[in-house]
């Protein structure tokens, strides 16, 4: 296969019509941009001929701060990357430090990590569906239903970690604390009822003609472009590329549980929505047996220490399949208590790079829906 080229047609990008075009800055205070994000769009009537994503409004210097502080002190900052999925962020960071320092994670901690990560995936995809519908103008109902269910998972997470969103739960070589009494039963109850909610949600949405009209054939992303741009996560799978790090890397204990990877065929917004819906059902298939199998034991490697943690010089890249895509942390250690280099590979940012290709030739309203289906969190895009 030769190197793919992505030429844009002259009529799509408005060549020769410069005088009739209108440039509009959508955002950073636009309600549909999911945070402080700006799209500089050039419009021909209502058709988009050019789109430039502008971000950095929420830049917090995360990587540089992490290079000037201890390894442990960066852990609560990772919560603030993608603040919907702090537990998976914790896991990705813990994984890369564990690779660097050669720590072993006890069996029980691996189970807790898997369970919390899949709960986070449920939570993220549910909310995303709600937000996507909000972007389409379904004001309230789907989002409120999604938030009602999210609340149940947040209650579980709160009783485990002490915080609803900023969990700061994982530690190098395990987890901070053990499950509180009765937690597994409560989680089993939530997981058992979740498929009922998914049925309800899908009856409400998946067959809805308005939703189909707004999403099918909108924001198409070809598999070639998605692969070339490094897009990962549900967005890549909606374009029909079978790539899921849970299968590819089989990190943690994912190899023990059979689950399928839903794939789209068209790569449009509807496929992205459906892939996420189906992924949630697969997550439930992982959660149910995992909650039954969870063994007793310690939750942290006895070799791991909180203070004075100095991994030997070297480098490591730890990555996981976050709800939004491949979340990776690249660390270089020079043997000091601070990392020499700390780099985050944020799925939201890299998935956002193909936004222009998805939106060209479509209307402004479609651009909003396409952006909604990328599933970005600006905390992670800007870091």
């Amino acid at each position, binding site marked *: 296969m030769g190197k793919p080229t992505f030429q844009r047609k002259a009529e799509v990008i408005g060549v020769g019509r410069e005088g009739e075009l209108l440039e509009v800055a959508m955002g950073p205070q636009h309600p549909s941009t999911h945070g402080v994000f700006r799209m500089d769009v050039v419009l021909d009537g209502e058709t988009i001929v050019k789109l430039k994503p502008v971000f950095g409004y929420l830049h917090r210097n995360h990587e540089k701060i992490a290079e000037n*502080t*201890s390894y*442990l*002190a*960066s*852990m*609560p*900052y990772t*919560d603030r990357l993608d603040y919907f999925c702090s537990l998976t962020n914790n896991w990705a960071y813990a994984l890369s430090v564990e690779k660097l320092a050669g720590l072993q994670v006890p069996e029980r901690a691996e189970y807790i990590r898997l369970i919390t990560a899949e709960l986070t995936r449920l939570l993220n995809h549910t909310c995303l569906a709600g937000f996507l519908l909000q972007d389409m103008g379904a004001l309230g*109902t789907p989002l409120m*239903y999604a938030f*009602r269910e999210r*609340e149940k998972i947040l*209650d579980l997470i*709160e*009783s*485990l*970690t*002490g*915080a609803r969103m*900023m969990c*700061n739960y994982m530690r190098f070589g395990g987890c*901070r*604390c053990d499950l*509180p009494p009765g937690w597994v039963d409560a989680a089993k109850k939530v997981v058992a009822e979740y498929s009922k909610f998914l049925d*309800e949600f899908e*009856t*409400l*949405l*998946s*067959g*809805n*003609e*308005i*939703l*189909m009209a707004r999403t099918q054939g909108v924001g198409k992303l070809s598999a070639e472009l998605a692969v070339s741009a490094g897009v990962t996560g549900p967005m890549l799978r909606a374009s029909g590329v079978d790539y899921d790090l849970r299968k590819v890397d089989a990190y943690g204990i994912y190899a023990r549980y059979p689950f399928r990877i839903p794939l789209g065929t068209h790569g449009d917004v509807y496929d992205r929505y459906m892939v996420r819906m189906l992924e949630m059902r697969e997550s439930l298939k992982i959660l149910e047996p995992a909650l039954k199998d969870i063994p007793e034991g310690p939750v942290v490697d006895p070799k791991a220490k*909180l*203070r004075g943690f100095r991994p030997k010089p070297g480098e490591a890249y730890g990555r996981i399949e976050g709800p939004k895509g491949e979340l990776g942390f690249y660390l270089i250690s020079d043997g000091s208590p601070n990392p020499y280099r700390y780099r985050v590979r944020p799925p939201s940012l890299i998935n956002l790079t193909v936004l222009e290709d998805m939106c060209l030739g479509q209307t402004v309203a479609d651009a909003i829906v396409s952006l909604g289906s990328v599933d970005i969190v600006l905390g992670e895009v800007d870091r």
Partner: protein
Amino acid sequence: MLGTGILKGMVETAKNFAGSYHDPERLTTVEYPEQRIAPKENARQFPMLIHDTEDPMKGLRCVACQICEKECPPQCIYIVKSKDKRADYKGQMQFYPATFDIDISVCMSCQICVEVCPFESIKMDTEFELSNTDRFGGLLIHKEQLAKSNEHYRKIHPADAAASDAVLAAEVAKAQAKAKADAEAKAAKAAAEAKAKADAAVAGPVPAPATSTAPQPTSPPAAPAA
């Protein structure tokens, strides 16, 4: 048929609407501030300093070791160590914090100070209604406001407090055992020395000065009522 999907969805919302009138499970919100959900056992908001005695300032467990100040990710803790020492719960002489401030406008409730504290002295409170009209001074919390009794800690985090009390009781028992062993060893050593001297006085030509009585074994320091 076009429109069936919409109708099905409407039936779903109607079910939810009607359900919320007779099924209490469907009512997912509470009327804050009249109604409140009890905080979870693990819930954490902002740090507090635990004290054991009636006077909060005298009984703070904190020994101003400044580990939390160093480890705090957003660097929101400010500690000044005291010049003098005072007895801690084990009767050991320790420094205490002359100043202990936490800027809760910077604090991100990450609980790392609690994890790194070797003295069980800083714990997380569950108080969250801390809004203030003074955005600078009002959010800088001093040790007087940070000090909370161990009873309060037991009330909000029963399991954690029990574990922490056990750790402290073990420390006290260890300190007492060590003090007792030390005192016994000292007494034995003193007796042996006195005997040696007395022997030397009897045997040697030089008259030894009169040996003083063996030093009294020091009594182990009394532990505070836990």
